[in-house]
């Protein structure tokens, strides 16, 4: 992760700004961070932070080459990039993609999160207290990936609406993700 130079930040703001939203895109008050992700071709997460408040007000974007989408908490931005053929799914990137998708698609209060690193689960505020006792029983070793005819199947511990349960994620080669409990209730 690194902060971009002021000129690059200004250029980015010009691309994404909305003049109907005063105060948010004032370049002098903003910083831009960039984090690489290899599940998209030439892929990055760009975080535009308005530093006039603390903690900063942050807007998140996914970039793949020339394509940039605003992450709005739904799956739609992923679908746009995937339709442009930006996805780079393989054995090495599949878990990163699944984890990232779960993090940025907020179905509050029924979030589904991949339990990969229990200490860095997002939306901790929505998680039941039991989680904090159970979480250390699970980790990356419990995530099993196998290739299917048209994508991947991932068996792993997930946090379903704040509670840990084993789940199955089906991810097709187009990037569509479906997650359900191994033993539906």
């Amino acid at each position: 992760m690194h902060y971009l130079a002021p000129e690059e930040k200004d250029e980015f703001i010009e691309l994404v700004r909305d003049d109907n939203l005063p105060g948010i895109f004032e370049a002098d008050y903003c910083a831009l961070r960039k984090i690489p992700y290899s599940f998209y071709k030439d892929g990055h997460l760009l975080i535009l932070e308005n530093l006039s408040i603390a903690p900063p007000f942050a807007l998140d974007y996914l970039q793949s080459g020339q394509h940039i989408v605003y992450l709005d908490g739904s799956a739609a931005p992923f679908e746009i990039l995937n339709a442009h053929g930006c996805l780079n799914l393989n054995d090495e990137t599949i878990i990163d993609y699944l984890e990232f998708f779960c993090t940025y698609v907020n179905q509050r209060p029924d979030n589904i999160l991949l339990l990969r690193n229990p200490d860095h689960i997002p939306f901790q505020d929505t998680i039941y207290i039991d989680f904090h006792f159970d979480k250390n029983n699970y980790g990356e070793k419990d995530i099993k990936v196998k290739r299917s005819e048209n994508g991947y199947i991932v068996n792993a511990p997930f946090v379903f609406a704040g509670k840990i349960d084993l789940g199955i994620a089906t991810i097709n080669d187009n990037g569509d993700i479906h997650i359900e409990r191994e033993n539906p209730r």
Partner: protein
Amino acid sequence: MIQPAYTHPRGEVILNEVKSILSASAKGVSLLQEPAQIIILKGPLPQAFVYEDKIIYLRIPALQEKGRLEQAIDLAGAYIELKMNQKLSPLEAESLGSDDILSEQHYKNVAIIYKTFPIAAELEEQGHKAVKELRLMGLGKLYQAWKTGVTLEDCANIYWEMFETKEED
């Protein structure tokens, strides 16, 4: 590239529902009288942003279709910040990043939270689960301290402890 769309497709409905929840508090009703433009944005995590003493932005996940208590508490905090901003000079961009300004910004944040607690308490009295919501928002410890009658200064010290622990994590 496609020009990003930031406003929430159900913003108007959500805002009405959020205002209705906040109206259960007498102090909330008083805040709602303040002139302000409120814009509902979409984004992965709920957060409020107040621009000077003019505009309140409430960010809500795109998949959320109804106003929730969490946003009513956020809206109360945003109104309190808006009122504070009426008495403060706008922050100079050149001063951002300095330790002093960062401390001031965080202190302001605590002051907003501190002034939001009486509204949350009123909402709780009216049958909303505001205390639970504050806990889910990570503010349970501060609220419990406020309930015992501690000063803003004491709350700020607790906030710093929480913040430092989070940074260490």
